[in-house]
């Protein structure tokens, strides 16, 4: 058994690739057979794929493949499947159930809140902010102060028809430009602004101005904002006696509001969003914490 091949380097040494780096040569060992077969199999697979599936761009189109697969159609099918799945999961129920029924059913409520949250981010966040806190001129929907009413039904109506939107049933309210149109004198505006600020407990208005302002308010503003300034959601007249001011509560801002009037616009979403989504939005906005 003396001619048994011994482990280690055979007399001539293993073949190398001929490359050498810092005295280190690379063995030119052949690959395992299974490895090579795998490589050829992947190459064959590529050819089979070219024939079976869309692969090569042509001048006006592309090679369609024998299986007739189309990624676009596959996606459309998936979208359709998602829609069916959503209906099966209660989206269809959302469309037919009343707001109270939605809020009473935990599963439906969860679905409405999730739908509403997504729809809010897509459609409402542009003006009201991603967290619904609004901005100057765009109402904060997190708080408990509502121009057009804070019940789920009132919120749904507002989303549906908008405000001054051109929709047939849209909310319409008109705060005149008392200064620009000459309805009140500059002094009257200063006085009534001071009075309005005092309504929400903001100090700094002299007693004499207050009396003058109260007089102007009773004659000019109380019709919409009420005797005590608590507002009227029927006309979108804001509550002036609370801590929240849509257009700012500095004397200058209040004077500007009275002088030039305010006509905030909110688009009507009926026809742009389906009824289930509008209901979901109403439930979501009501559930932000300030709903009535």
């Amino acid at each position: 058994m003396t001619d048994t091949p011994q482990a280690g380097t055979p007399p001539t040494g293993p073949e190398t690739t001929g490359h050498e780096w810092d005295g280190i040569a690379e063995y030119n060992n052949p690959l395992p057979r299974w490895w090579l077969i795998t490589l050829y199999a992947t190459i064959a697979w590529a050819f089979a794929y070219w024939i079976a599936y869309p692969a090569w761009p042509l001048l006006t189109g592309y090679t369609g493949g024998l299986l007739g697969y189309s990624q676009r159609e596959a996606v459309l099918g998936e979208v359709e499947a998602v829609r069916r799945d959503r209906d099966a999961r209660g989206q269809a129920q959302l469309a037919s159930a009343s707001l109270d029924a939605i809020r009473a059913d935990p599963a439906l409520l969860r679905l409405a809140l999730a739908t509403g949250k997504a729809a809010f981010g897509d459609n409402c966040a542009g003006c009201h902010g991603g967290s619904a806190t609004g901005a100057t001129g765009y109402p904060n929907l997190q708080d408990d102060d509502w121009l057009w009413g804070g019940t789920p039904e009132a919120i749904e109506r507002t989303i549906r028809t908008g405000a001054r939107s051109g929709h047939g049933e849209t909310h319409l309210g008109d705060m005149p430009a008392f200064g620009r149109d000459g309805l009140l004198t500059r002094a009257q505006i200063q006085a009534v602004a001071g009075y309005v600020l005092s309504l929400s407990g903001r100090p700094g208005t002299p007693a004499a101005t207050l009396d003058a302002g109260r007089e102007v308010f009773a004659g000019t503003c109380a019709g919409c904002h009420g005797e005590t300034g608590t507002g009227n959601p029927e006309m979108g007249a804001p509550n002036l006696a609370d801590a929240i001011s849509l257009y700012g509560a500095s004397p200058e801002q209040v004077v500007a509001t009275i002088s030039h009037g305010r006509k905030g616009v909110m688009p009507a979403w009926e026809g742009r969003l389906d009824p289930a989504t509008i209901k979901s939005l109403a439930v979501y906005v009501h559930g932000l914490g300030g709903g009535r």
Partner: protein
Amino acid sequence: MPLAEPTQPAVAAPMAAGPGRTKTFGLRATRAAIPAVSGSLYAARTKIHPEAVRGTFRTIKWVLLAVTLGIYYLVPFLRWDRGPGAPSQAVLLDLDRGRFYAFAIELWPQDVTYVMGLLILAAFVLFLMNAVAGRVWCGYVCPQTVWTDLFMAVERLIEGDRRARLKRDAAPWTAEKLARRGAKHAVWLVIAWWTGGAWVLYFADAPTLVGQLATFRAPPVAYAAILILTATTYTLAGHMREQVCTYMCPWPRIQGSLTDAHSLNILYRRDRGEPRTAVKKAAALRAAGQPAGDCVDCFACVTACPAGIDIRDGLQLDCIQCGLCADACDTVMTRLGRPTGLIGYDTEANCRSRAEGRGPVSRMLRPRTILYGLLVAGVGGFMLTSLATRSLTGLSVLHDRNPQFVPLSDGSIRNGFTLRIVNKRPVARRFALAVEGLPEARVEVVGGTPEALAVPADATQEFRVLVFAPRAARLAPTTPLSFRITDPASDETAGTRDHFKAP
């Protein structure tokens, strides 16, 4: 396809000389044959036909094979009473509900840190085993080794031992060869199928799933898993065998850095064996006062090796240290009336020291083994402590990121929080919520009351909590709040801290 001419003629040439006296012994021999087939794109694997051996290590391996396979196949059928509504399987990975059960332990997905700890522990145990006694894992309990051993036993039972198999490999196809080959592959496939079958039982109630599988009502994923595991077991244990260890497994490479000259390894004691000399010649040499080693160069160790290597070349990458060469050598040495142990567990340092005429120098306690031992004890102790003292009630609070606070029409400030209560007990519970830090504050729970937050059994529940601070409160921009839930029935509590934000 431009496949090169196979290397078969060059490699198979010695085979043709006589299968019983073949002189190719696996990888090393194949590599030696490479220059003759220069230019070929691949080297065909030389099939290894290990010879059956008897001895200490073989017995240990049979016992461990029975124990490990027994654990694998039978554990899913162990029962463990967890009360009504909870699964009664002792070990169960419930993917649908995201729970892992192991006897008295129930883990949730957020307890995945224990799995990480277990992996760290396993790594350190492997390191320790390697520093003490080499590739104990590879040689005795690695699934690849255990299943390959089982498949080889089947092969030996049906096709005979090494010589019979070599002869049959070289012989033309006959009905008998076809029958034996077919029977072997059939038994292999049954074992492989059973392997996959046992695997899926860890993921569902075992007796139920067995019934479903038998009546073809099991979920498709179960059949798919069984199919995949059947294929991998059949391929890896039946066909790829030592190639998995040599080419696919990273452990042989890592092992090199974990073992040292003082680690026990299956070694050829070359100080005793060299120079290799035939029995009669050795007697003559010794009579003449010349050195002669105990190794008679009989190749019993090589033909017994399931990895196809020659242990006498020293510690090497392909060696899984299963000890079968030691058994083979011991059998020969006993027959020759020489002491056993020419191949056995020893250390490189001892071999070297003996060759220089000194005694053994290796010791088990070395900085390396002590450090690994301490790490194993430390990680294990930490995990046990944290597992034993973990709470089955949990509370996490998330302050609304945006808006951080909401001024309300009456001048008060509202903060919104999302609470998640974790109830790891198998019963539904009601918790009372207390929020401290703002004495004037009012707490509201949307859709509930702070006194009774209902959480279902073995579940988590989310609550939206609103905290109102009145206008009169003098609020700093940030006021610390503490949230605490208490289960009045068991007095178990959990708490966490957050803040109340104001303008």
